[in-house]
């Protein structure tokens, strides 16, 4: 499971969390998913594209997963707040001279 200090985002808690994590994060992390704000029709299209590109989804889970993503990441959800990479303690980086 992803921990508190992990650089990866987590999928929302729910009965399908584990299944979705297994199917969807073998190639890319969950942050790509959690930032989306799509209608159910658009989620359906994306899921089918991901399955075509190698996501292993049991056909009996497909509808449940579409519902899981549509309700968690529909168009009316608040914007996902992304974290930042660490900044160094040194003064603001400035380039000097010609490059």
């Amino acid at each position, binding site marked *: 499971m992803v921990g*508190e*200090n992990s*650089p*990866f985002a987590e999928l929302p808690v729910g009965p399908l969390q584990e299944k979705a994590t297994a199917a969807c994060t*073998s*190639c*890319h*992390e969950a*942050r*790509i998913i959690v*930032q*989306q*704000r*799509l*209608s159910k029709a*658009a989620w359906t*299209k*994306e899921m089918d594209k991901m399955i*075509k*590109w*190698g*996501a292993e989804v049991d056909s009996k889970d497909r509808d449940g997963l579409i519902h899981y993503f549509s309700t968690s990441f529909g*168009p009316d959800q*608040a*914007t*996902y*707040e*992304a*974290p*930042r*990479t*660490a*900044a*160094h303690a040194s003064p*603001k*980086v*400035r*380039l000097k001279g010609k*490059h």
Partner: protein
Amino acid sequence: MGSRREFLRTASAGALADLTSKTLLGAAAGQATISVPGKEGLIVRSYRFLDLETPVEYMTDWITPIPHFFVRNHMFEPAEIDAKEWTLGIGGEVDKPLSLTLADLAKIPVYSVTNTLECAGNGRSQQSPRVPGIQWGKGAVGNARFSGPSLKSLLEKAGVKDTAKHVVFRGSDVVPGKVPPFIRSIPIEKAMDVDTLVATHMNGAALTPHHGYPARVITPGWAGAASCKWLTQITVQDKPADGNFMLPGYRMPNQPVKPGEAVKPEDTHSVTGLAVKSLIAGPIDGAKLKPGSQVVRGVAWAGEADITRVEVSTDGGASWNLAQLGKDQAKYAWRLWSYPWKPARSGDYTILSRATDSQGRVQPDAAVWNPSGYFYDACDQVKVYVQA
């Protein structure tokens, strides 16, 4: 950005005065940062694959320092490439297929191009209705000096046949699952432009792995997807490249479509040159400003065209004022701009920026929606509050 606005409203006035310039503001207050060596304070759109965005408040330098330069990856970066083992193949519709080493490239005269590189999907999160893809804010853009031999010199070395119409690039990205590889092409005319490079250096140093070490294409003034990283193969053809990242990927509708409407692939064309755009680097959206003189500043660029004018409105678009353009300029590079502003009263202000270019293009009030969320180019906008 609700929690960020809350953070700004409760912070002290003194500290806020710095916000428009150098202070790094964390994302949601209290959110932990993620370590990416060599990349400082960038917004993590994805850690795996790595997609990092430049906060607009960093866009105050003409040349974007590497630690602040955005990173865009469709898939996995290659494992460490051995410079001594690396070769670049050139084949297809050429008289003499070649295999060049880095040492071979170093013997060819070097060109430098200062290029504003922008992801086609920059600004996507602002499209309405929302579309799938990396939800970039405003900062998938940066300006750097790229150096290396012209692609033209390499193609001439191989001898381009009359049948040559397109030049295909393949890089060493590691392709996951059954994802199609990232292969794209550009037309021969753009490939033979002396400013199109096989770059080995960025801002005076060798390309870093995130930016395509040891060599990448730089197709200046075009969407970033035309600038293949970790270049390994150039193939000259009589037709464009096949594959997902040419069709249906990276295409714009030939005619504007209604927001939310589907578009048939035959009614689209490949993305090429960037649109005219401007961004406000400061004050930042949601800032609480002390009364008195302010400076509105930012960047503006126009792909293959030049910026001729940047205008700023501090009254939500009712009236516009000419901004001053920065002195640094180069073909394909953005211009810095600034506008001194003394708000007449305290209260809320909506500040807009609007760029015009040498082709007569002007930023629109609203971007033309498209299903992929490419080329978001509406006038930039920030909302600020001037204290009494």
